[in-house]
């Protein structure tokens, strides 16, 4: 009798397993054919830092060196200059991507909210020189691509988190990602 019961239980669990797999079989695949299709990148994706501009398209950065000091690997090098309006601005702002840890510390250190973590992820290059990103490149990325500014200990509301994992906001070249800060 116990044998019959065990057999019945085993058979039932087997059919349950088969049911799970056949459900997956008829669900649409989650594969993204990467080079042909672009993956959807969350706006909360933490890439490398990018330079942000104000509405007028002018860089917010004042070359105060806070990010360069905060950087644990010395990936940021800044050359400052004084403009005609007596304000400081970065003459050069280089990011050594070969060193950058994408740790977000520069974004946290920036007192002017002039840095964000970009969503660019295709960082492969064919020579080490290509790993040095200059001011123009980073400023352009900050203008065109979604970015995030999230501080340590910051709690995202479910809505903000959902926006982060959302669909079209993060398409490359699409509209600017929400600044979550």
């Amino acid at each position, binding site marked *: 009798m116990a044998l019959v019961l065990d*057999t019945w239980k085993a058979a039932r669990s087997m059919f349950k397993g088969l049911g799970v797999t056949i459900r997956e079989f008829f669900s649409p*695949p989650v594969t993204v054919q990467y080079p042909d299709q672009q993956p959807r990148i969350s706006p909360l994706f933490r890439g490398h830092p990018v330079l942000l501009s104000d509405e007028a398209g002018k860089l917010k950065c004042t070359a105060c060196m806070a990010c360069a000091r905060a950087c644990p690997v010395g990936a940021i090098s800044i050359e400052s200059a004084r403009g005609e309006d007596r304000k400081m601005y970065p003459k050069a702002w280089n990011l050594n991507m070969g060193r950058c840890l994408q740790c977000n510390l520069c974004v946290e250190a920036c007192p002017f909210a002039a840095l964000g973590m970009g969503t660019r992820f295709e960082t492969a290059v064919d020579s080490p020189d290509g790993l040095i990103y200059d001011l123009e490149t980073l400023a352009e990325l900050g203008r065109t691509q979604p970015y995030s500014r999230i501080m340590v200990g910051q709690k995202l509301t479910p809505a903000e988190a959902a926006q982060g994992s959302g669909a079209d906001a993060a398409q490359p070249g699409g509209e600017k990602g929400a600044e979550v800060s």
Partner: protein
Amino acid sequence: MSIVSSLNALVGSLPGFWSPLVSALIKVLLVLAFVFGNEIMLIWLERKVCGRFQRRKGPMYVGRPEGWLQSIPDVVKLLAKEDIIPARADRWLFVLAPMVIMVPAVALFVVIPFGRGWVPRDLNIGILYLVALGSFTILSLFMAGWGSGNKWSTLGAMRAVAMLLGYEVPLALSLVGVAMVAGSLSLVDIVHAQERAWFVLLQPIGFLVFLVAAAAELNRTPFDLAEAEQELVAGYQVEYSGMRWAMFFVAEYASLMAISAIAATCFFGGWLGPFASGPWWFLAKLYFFIFLFMWVRWTFPRIRIDHMMELGWKFLLPVALLNIVLTGIGLAIWG
């Protein structure tokens, strides 16, 4: 049908001993073409089915749509690989094993009726022939495992042989029930006996025993103890590379087809269908069983060797015997 009969007439008009020779040759070529033609698609199908079960897409790029030509670059790659025979290997056994394994896998199709009158050779001992040849596969697995001179290979071969005893007996006994109801061992007679009801309805217990034992005979997950990648690397295939390895791979799919064909013939009425009976029904059932075995493969994890033996000896064998007793009683009452 008309093609077959005109071909028969043509071959029959040949003089003397040429007639049986040519007819045998044509049948062999047709069976080989059927087996290998389907095989190329099966290897692709397995990867697609496996992918879909894991919500992937499988091969997509070689041959649009859906990468259906993927097997061809696979074969080219395997042909280009270095052929290695280990120094410690028993040369003869090592070289012969991949050739021997192809024989039973293809020879099983001799008695399979593809349609009415479409049978390479209607042996009156059909089921006996199937069971005898089916267990023959183990010989080459053992040759490969022992001949490689590698401990993992030997372990795999030992498992294969130990398993054989566990599943081959219930497999044979489950087919005995079919033969009892049909009153014949010939597969053509068995199909004709299913005109009123498929044997899956008359022999449900026998069918389930057959399915489990057949999955074990195929050496596929959950019964792939003989190759067990995670424990034995690849079991009896460890030392094989390139085309020699591909022979094992091809034979595995040929047996998958053969076993599915046996299941379709013995339990699902072969070429018979609810309407328009013909070879297409056989093909549809064949692919139904192939899909079923793939479904099982990508659902269950491998079972342990002692559990396997327990399943074979303590469960499948008594149940198969019980099925024979019940069939006998049923035949005595209604037969």
